[in-house]
């Protein structure tokens, strides 16, 4: 690990001032950042510890939504009775990620900002545009079984690894950012993350010196929420494909539909196309299949990950059927 200096801050103004130093970076739970620093993929020269800022609360909002402080741990949010009752898919997604020990340390803000688990990003001997802009992408013609099928570019086919962010996307979360001048701006999660394009090292729309202070969830839409994660091991493993759905039906017609995929793109992949194919349609397996086809219309594999396209379709159909509790049939 490269040498760095360390500083703990206890108020927001001090945090902003401290991170303005060249080479400075915020640290909170540290479960991803320290791992990357050990491998010298991340090399901050100054660490600003924000874990003791008073941003740990989960608060009810007057409109029926909630605000989650960025320094709340993954486990505290997953265990919060209000989250479990009103946003059960968010609790499910948090509990599907990492291990008990990691969830006790990892913060909500850090979960949003965690880096990809692309093996070429982690391998400092391999070409990676995310690590070294302009170096090339070894994953394109490498072992790319875990890589993106949507929204990728010739510069990068890495995926975003978060489970939590997938459900937050379906819930239309707003990310609350503290700007260096101490004002707050909110960004919809779908706009918060960037597709790789020609600059995959720029992953979000955060500006230098900004800090995530919280996540605001609007009141949950009507309907049943479900998060399903498909992976190589039953526990403590990243997704190959995951799906968050929220679906409501009335007399077997779909009245509300939200769909977001995980582990298929550089960002949590909200599928407006799938939602349009569901709304107002009968809750049948044929409708679910039409939605799955719509969601994957622009999908492309890179060899080893071709199976993900079919896997994503089937995972969506099954999850919609389970959530709606009708239209459970067999794929034709």
């Amino acid at each position, binding site marked *: *690990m490269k*040498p*760095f*200096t*360390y*500083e*703990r801050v206890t108020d927001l103004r001090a945090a902003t001032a401290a991170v303005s130093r060249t080479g400075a970076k915020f*640290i909170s*739970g*540290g*479960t991803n950042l*320290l*791992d990357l620093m*050990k491998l010298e993929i991340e090399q901050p020269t100054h*660490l600003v*510890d924000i*874990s003791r800022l008073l941003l740990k609360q989960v608060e009810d909002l007057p409109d029926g939504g909630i605000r989650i402080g960025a320094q709340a741990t993954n*486990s505290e949010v*997953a*265990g919060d*009775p209000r989250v*479990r*009752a009103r946003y*059960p898919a968010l*609790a*499910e997604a948090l*509990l*599907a990620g*990492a*291990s*008990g*020990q*990691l969830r*006790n*340390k990892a913060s909500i803000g850090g979960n949003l900002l965690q880096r990809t688990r692309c093996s070429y990003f982690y391998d400092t001997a391999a070409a990676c545009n995310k690590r070294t802009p302009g170096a090339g992408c070894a994953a394109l013609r490498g072992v790319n079984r875990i890589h993106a099928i949507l929204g990728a570019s010739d510069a990068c086919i890495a995926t975003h690894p978060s489970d939590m962010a997938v459900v937050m996307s379906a819930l239309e979360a707003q990310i609350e950012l503290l700007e260096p001048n101490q004002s707050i701006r909110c960004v919809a999660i779908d706009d918060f993350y960037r597709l790789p394009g020609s600059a995959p090292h720029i992953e979000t729309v955060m500006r230098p010196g900004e800090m995530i202070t919280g996540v605001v969830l609007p009141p949950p839409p009507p309907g049943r929420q479900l998060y399903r994660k498909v992976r190589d091991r*039953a*526990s*403590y493993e990243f997704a190959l494909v995951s799906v968050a759905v929220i679906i409501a039906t009335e007399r077997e017609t779909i009245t509300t539909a939200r769909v977001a995929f995980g582990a298929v793109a550089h960002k949590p992949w909200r599928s407006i196309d799938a939602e349009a194919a569901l709304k107002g349609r009968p809750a049948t397996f044929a409708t679910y299949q039409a939605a799955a086809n719509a969601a994957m219309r622009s999908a492309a594999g890179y060899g080893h990950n071709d199976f993900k396209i079919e896997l994503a379709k089937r995972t969506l159909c099954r999850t919609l059927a389970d959530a709606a509790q009708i239209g459970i049939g067999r794929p034709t």
Partner: protein
Amino acid sequence: MDTVTKSPTVAISHVALTVNGQPQRLELDPRTSLLDALREHLHLTGTKKGCDHGQCGACTVLINDRRINSCLTLAVMHEHDDVVTIEGLSAAEALHPLQAAFIERDAFQCGYCTPGQICSAVGMLAEAKAGWPSHVTPDVASRQIALSDAEIRERMSGNICRCAAYPNIVAAIRDVAEETLR
């Protein structure tokens, strides 16, 4: 947190924390993980280094009663925290109920993962007692947690046992869970 520059490249940091009930004050390179501080500076070698990347759970300790991986956190971040390691689970020669259960159930072969398994189980039982759900809990909104074998396995998935003593680890934890959650 005061920082004193010792050489042009490495600044030495101070941290005061409590380890197994004893106040400790350490002078450290800020890069020192909590795991290395425990093993190399305080000579508490019960906590093991396995992968050093948060993947195996051998380094699990309790911070303010919560289980964490001590390899993935900096010692300097734990000012005034209360750390409990395998050495501090019980007084003197007495065994913690989980230590006794691991012996009774023969829940290890080489024993390298065992301190992490036991510290993790202590934290896990407290989480279950607090009503926290898991990935295998049928309804996350439910406040009643029954620690079935499937629940124990899921909640302990952050601890790898290369000898694969898993059946006996689950049995040992189940024995203590029945006492704890009764």
